[in-house]
């Protein structure tokens, strides 16, 4: 999994690519550590190129959201593939995360 970061005004847009699974979640957690250290309060995960998320990936995303919330930050997710979205729906995590159809809609919500 790769993640490209870009600052759009006060929002850090993280475009992830590949699979977020039990092995790649380790790197994702490290990336999140850096984001927390850099004091970014508004983080948007663009999932347009994320093809797979397992329960370890979900746990890493939950952890990131919790950490951001503790510092007054926000995490949004956008452009989710239907199969990945289904995992968030089945686990009811769509109630916990704020998920948007497009990057523009997510950016407007911050």
């Amino acid at each position, binding site marked *: 999994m790769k993640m490209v970061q870009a600052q759009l005004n006060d929002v850090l847009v993280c475009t992830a690519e590949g699979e977020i699974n*039990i092995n790649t979640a380790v790197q994702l957690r490290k990336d999140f550590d850096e984001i927390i250290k850099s004091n970014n309060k508004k983080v948007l995960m663009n999932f347009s190129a994320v093809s797979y998320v397992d*329960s370890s990936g979900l746990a890493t995303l939950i952890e990131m959201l919790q950490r951001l919330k503790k510092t007054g930050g926000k995490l949004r997710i956008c452009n989710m593939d239907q199969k990945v979205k289904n995992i968030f729906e089945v686990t009811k995590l769509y*109630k916990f995360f704020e998920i948007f159809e497009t990057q523009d809609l997510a950016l407007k919500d911050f």
Partner: protein
Amino acid sequence: MVIEEIVKSDLKLIPDISSRVFERLQARGIDKDTLFNVRLSFEEALTNAIRHGNRNDSAKEVSIRIELFLDKITIEVKDQGQGFDFHNTPLPTEKQNLEKLSGRGVFLIRSLMDEVKYFDGGSRIKMVKSFNLAPKDRSS
């Protein structure tokens, strides 16, 4: 088609094992949505077997048996652990569990597969998913 493998208890091996197995299944014409759900369930079962069943003990192994029929796939994963209380796994969708970092693997398997049964005290899982193969695969 039957795939049988015995694998070491190493979480890092899961992507390779899964790729090896699912490349063969993909070639048989199973639709992508079914394949996604079956693969996720298989990897969750494998993760549970290695992490919770065998407790990451490299001396222990996990047995895999996958059988592909015209209208369904059955997957069995067996570890060498003590099993677990599969009747009483907390629901991760309940409000008090929604933010918990663990406990979604078994739930995902039960949600994404059509039939899930545990044997040997929970150290062996058998799961079934039904589907329609593409016509070209039925005739071959």
